[in-house]
């Protein structure tokens, strides 16, 4: 029998089919959370990639966990282990098989941990320990900052670098603590208590650790640690390294930062802002003071020209002018008077001269003297009196003959 196909249909190739299955599967299952049991577990050398089968009682799926991801596993996968896997599905066209590409893998007991986490979270929330109102605000000038983190690594280096760039007048006290494993909570509680006894008054405490898996961060979900943070009298910033995951510490802390670097940016103000404001203050102060001085200067100039201020000078000038006038008057009067007197004197002189004996003599008259005395009447003379007759040009003796 011959295969009968309609002329409108064309057969697809194997590759086409695989391609279509691949896009369907990889789109639909780009993120899966799946639980099952490990079997046929093989670790490939030298690549270190883990190949295994995930199964339940009815079905199975192949899986691979690349070495780069498996190094972060907190446990060694073994056959028979029940696990929870986060991953995606991929289709390998060359083999025609599909496989789970594992991102993260947890031991199934983690389900119980998750439940305990939710329960604790609920309990503390109901006690009001997450309330926004009880969160302390960070001080504006953090001059003394404590950081609780591991003493080596990127966290402390980044924190120091950013602090130095933004606010170098601060002092940072590092209290080293282990930030993973089962001793995490106990160590950090101890560090917190110690920070509160330091001699310097501490402005902010930062609890920081870098990124990690859920297991790495698990210590930060500890109840005693959460309560220690609540009891802390100093504001606490938690920077537990994961952008999206929140630990109990993040909820109870006063400020939560997504990363330790972000914490440093939050805690330390930028000195350039303050330098700018200081510059403005300087400008204002200088402006106000020089303004005041020039105002006073203008005021003084105004006073100098003010009528009332000049009155004493005016009065003085007035007097000066009056003095000059008087002086002139005096001069004029004196001169006039003097002239008048001079005229009078001249007149008198003339008169006197006119009536003087010398002048009379010059006019041709003569004077008669008897015994040195002038004779002004003939009655004063008798016969035979001896007299002197004074002429303008000389004297003669004479005797009265009648």
């Amino acid at each position, binding site marked *: 029998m011959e295969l009968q196909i309609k002329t409108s249909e064309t057969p697809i190739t194997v590759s086409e089919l695989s391609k279509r299955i691949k896009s369907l599967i990889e789109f639909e299952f780009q993120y899966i959370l799946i639980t099952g049991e490990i079997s046929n577990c093989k670790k490939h050398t030298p690549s270190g990639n883990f190949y295994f089968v995930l199964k339940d009682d009815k079905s199975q799926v192949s899986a691979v966990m690349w070495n780069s991801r498996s190094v972060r596993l907190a446990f060694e996968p073994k056959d028979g282990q029940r696990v929870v896997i986060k991953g995606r599905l991929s289709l390998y066209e060359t083999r025609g098989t599909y496989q789970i590409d594992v991102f993260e893998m947890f031991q199934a007991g983690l389900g119980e941990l998750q439940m305990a986490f939710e329960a604790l979270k609920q309990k503390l929330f109901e006690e009001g320990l997450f309330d926004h109102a009880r969160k302390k605000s960070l001080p*504006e*000038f953090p*001059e003394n900052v404590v950081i609780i983190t591991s*003493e080596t690594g990127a966290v402390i280096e980044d924190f*120091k670098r950013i*602090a*130095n760039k933004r*606010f*170098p*007048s*601060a*002092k*940072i*006290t*590092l*209290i*080293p*603590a*282990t930030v993973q494993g089962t*001793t995490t909570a*106990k*160590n950090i509680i*101890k*560090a917190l208590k*110690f920070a*509160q*006894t*330091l*001699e*310097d*008054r*501490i402005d902010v405490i930062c609890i920081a650790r870098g990124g990690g898996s859920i297991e790495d961060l698990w210590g930060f979900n500890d109840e005693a640690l959460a309560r220690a943070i609540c009891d802390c009298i100093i504001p606490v910033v938690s920077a537990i390294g994961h952008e999206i995951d929140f630990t109990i510490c993040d909820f109870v802390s006063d400020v939560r930062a997504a990363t330790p670097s972000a914490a440093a940016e939050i805690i330390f103000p930028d*000195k350039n802002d*303050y*330098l700018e404001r*200081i510059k403005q*203050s*300087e400008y*204002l*102060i200088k402006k*106000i*003071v020089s*303004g*005041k*001085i020039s105002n*006073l200067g203008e005021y003084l100039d105004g006073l100098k020209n003010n009528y009332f201020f000049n009155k004493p000078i005016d009065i003085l000038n007035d007097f000066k002018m009056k003095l000059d006038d008087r002086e002139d008057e005096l001069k004029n009067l004196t001169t006039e008077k003097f002239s008048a007197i001079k005229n009078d004197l001249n007149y008198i002189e003339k008169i006197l001269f006119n009536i003087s004996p010398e002048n009379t003599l010059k006019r041709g008259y003569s004077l008669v003297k008897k015994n040195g005395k002038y004779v002004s009447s003939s009655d004063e003379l008798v016969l035979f009196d001896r007299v002197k007759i004074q002429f303008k040009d000389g004297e003669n003796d004479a005797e009265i003959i009648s």
Partner: protein
Amino acid sequence: MAKQKNEKDTESFEYNYKRLQDIVDKLESEVDDASLDKIMEYYQEGLKLINSCRSKLKDAELKIEKINSEFNNSK
């Protein structure tokens, strides 16, 4: 025990910075009424504070102290 942060700690940047803002406010509000002496007093204190705050920010070096990790010996 932690010593009380002395609000009047004249060494601290915080105190000096706040005092500087104070001086600017005083100058702005009192400039018309205050005597020249008072204004000059504010001026001098203001400049002194500006220098001190600036040097605290520019010349400061971040101080780091590490607590001896022997305190942290719990296991």
